[in-house]
């Protein structure tokens, strides 16, 4: 395209200000709604789902629950207690090379923690170092439990940031290295993990061996956690889950059909489903946005059609003095692309401003869901990738909007065009 065409378009647009403004508005509005919708959608998803996938561990956890069906002479409502036999099965040759990093957690214990007269409640399980990854705990200060803590049965504890704030108001970092009173026994704080503003986590884990030694000599365990190697599809993970829990159900005389005997948290499939859900919501938002944009495109196309009709005489003159059909075609399409691109950018910019406004206003409102308070919108915005996609979309849209009118203009015979008024 020659630079000259820009001058042609500029003068044509300058001389039809109202028409240009109306056409531009249709496109700006479409893009504005698309961006605002996607931004608000992202904000809502960020708020309600948070970065949930960040909190979903890439592992499977199985815990005992309570049966809901009678089986093998047992009544329903029986509590299921996992033990070392289950761990042995998990580590058996059947699962060699597939199930890895088998970690167990003791049944937890409700405790009261106190330091200098400040108290806070907590749920204290005995855990292995892998618990950190399994529960996606990010350290705020200090460290998590390690192998030495396990081997030496150290009396050390990891707190949540929320608990640390209760024990040492104003300077939670000061609890590090302090001995605190845990239900009458002193434990030393080695680390504090982050609790995000949305939740109040109360888990305060201690070493597995310490827990066993101090509170529970039995071979009972609360849960088994393991990672899986070599599987990729949701179906494969589901099949593994079915076979594994089937075996555990036989060992504990649970009806194979009973869905409540064991509690299974499959981080792999949860993650996949979460991603699928996110993708679906995002797709739905895109479709809504695109539909809005299409009405903008139709608007541009419509106005371009009228323009072409109004300018038929002018095209007749141009053709008489030597404009080829291709030149007329290019002129209209270029004009359409320029209008959509310029006003599209304006709409996109306003859409981003609207996202910022949403963030500062209704985004700050909080909603109570159960025990948590969450913000309406968290970071409602669209990324650079979306902006780039939208730009591309604008150019495509402009071309589409211009094609029919341009084709019509290029096709009209010069003699008929000259006769038109």
């Amino acid at each position, binding site marked *: 395209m*020659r630079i*000259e065409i820009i*001058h042609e378009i500029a*003068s*044509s647009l*300058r*001389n039809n200000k109202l028409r240009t403004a109306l056409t531009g508005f249709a496109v700006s509005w479409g893009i504005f709604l698309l961006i605002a919708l996607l931004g608000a959608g992202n904000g809502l998803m960020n708020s309600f789902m948070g970065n949930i996938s960040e909190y979903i561990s890439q592992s499977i956890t199985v815990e005992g629950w309570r049966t809901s069906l009678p089986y093998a002479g047992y009544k329903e409502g029986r509590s299921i207690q996992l033990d070392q036999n289950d761990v042995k099965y998990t580590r058996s040759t059947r699962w060699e090379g597939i199930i890895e990093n088998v970690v167990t957690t003791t049944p937890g214990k409700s405790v009261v923690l106190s330091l200098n007269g400040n108290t806070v409640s907590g749920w204290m399980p005995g855990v292995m170092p892998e618990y950190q990854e399994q529960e996606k705990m990010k350290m705020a200060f200090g460290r998590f439990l390690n192998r030495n803590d396990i081997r030496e049965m150290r009396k050390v504890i990891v707190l949540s940031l929320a608990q640390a704030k209760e024990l040492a108001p104003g300077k939670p970092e000061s609890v590090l290295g302090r001995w605190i009173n845990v239900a009458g026994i002193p434990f030393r704080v080695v680390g504090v993990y982050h609790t995000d503003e949305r939740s109040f986590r109360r888990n305060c884990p201690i070493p597995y061996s310490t827990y066993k030694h101090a509170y529970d000599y039995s071979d009972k365990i609360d849960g088994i956690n393991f990672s899986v190697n070599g599987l990729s599809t949701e179906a494969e993970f589901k099949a593994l889950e079915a076979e594994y829990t089937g075996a555990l159900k036989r060992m504990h005389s649970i009806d194979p059909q009973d869905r409540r005997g064991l509690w299974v948290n499959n981080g792999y499939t949860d993650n996949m489903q979460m991603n699928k859900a996110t993708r679906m919501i995002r797709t739905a938002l895109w479709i809504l946005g695109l539909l809005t944009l299409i009405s903008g495109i139709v608007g541009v196309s419509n106005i371009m059609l009228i323009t072409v009709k109004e300018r038929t*005489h*002018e095209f*007749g*003159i*141009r*053709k*008489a*003095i*030597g*404009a*080829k*059909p*291709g*030149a007329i075609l290019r002129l209209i399409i270029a004009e359409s692309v320029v209008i959509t691109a310029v006003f599209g950018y304006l709409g996109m910019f306003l859409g981003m401003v609207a996202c910022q406004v949403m963030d500062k206003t209704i985004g700050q409102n909080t909603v109570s869901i159960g025990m948590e308070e969450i913000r309406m919108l968290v970071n409602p915005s669209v990324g650079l990738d979306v902006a780039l996609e939208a730009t591309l979309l604008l150019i495509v849209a402009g071309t589409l909007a211009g094609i029919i009118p341009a084709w019509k203009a290029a096709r009209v*015979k*010069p*003699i008929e065009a*000259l006769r038109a008024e």
Partner: protein
Amino acid sequence: MALIELKELNKTYNNGQPLHVLKGINLSIERGEFVSIMGASGSGKSTLLNILGILDNYDTGTYTLDGTLIKDLTEKQSADYRNRMIGFIFQSFNLIGFKTAVENVELPLYYQGVPRRKRHELAMEYLEKLGLTPWASHFPNEMSGGQKQRVAIARALITHPRIILADEPTGALDSKTSVEVMQLLKQLNQEEGITIIVVTHESGVANETNKIIHIKDGIIGQIEENIHHDAWGGPLMK
């Protein structure tokens, strides 16, 4: 060979009822001639002019322009031929309203791909020739009819066409301006040897040309040599 050769040219319009407009036109116009085609409305003179200007096609016969057979051309080819070989002057000027005088004159060169600066220089040169330099950046609606027609003439001349086709060039002008425009065309023909064909229904206008071709009901009638009009030099009849 003549600049323009028409042989047995026929044209029928098929809008509902077939209308045979041109019924076997034979005509040849030499290089450097100043000719008028005269006829009443409905005689077929405008159709003939449109065919000569490659704005319309014809059914049978041949039209040869400067050795090139003009027949069954694509839109692209005819646009190209119009651009390089023909200059148009219309009754209603047909200037583009949102372009200044100089931009209007530049336009044919734009479609030839001439660079902007070169185009502008040439256009200014032609405007100067026609005494329009002070109006170069004026829009058509800021000019008088005579000025507008002179801009249109500059636009027609800028590509050095083989022929200038003028369709009722004085039809929208008052009699004084009409005389000026006709004098200008005459001058262009005499001084620069440009071939000019004027279509008109006014005998006063036709009288200014060297040859008058009468057309009636789609057939060429009398062809009048009009070589003494300069000697007579009478006022243009309106």
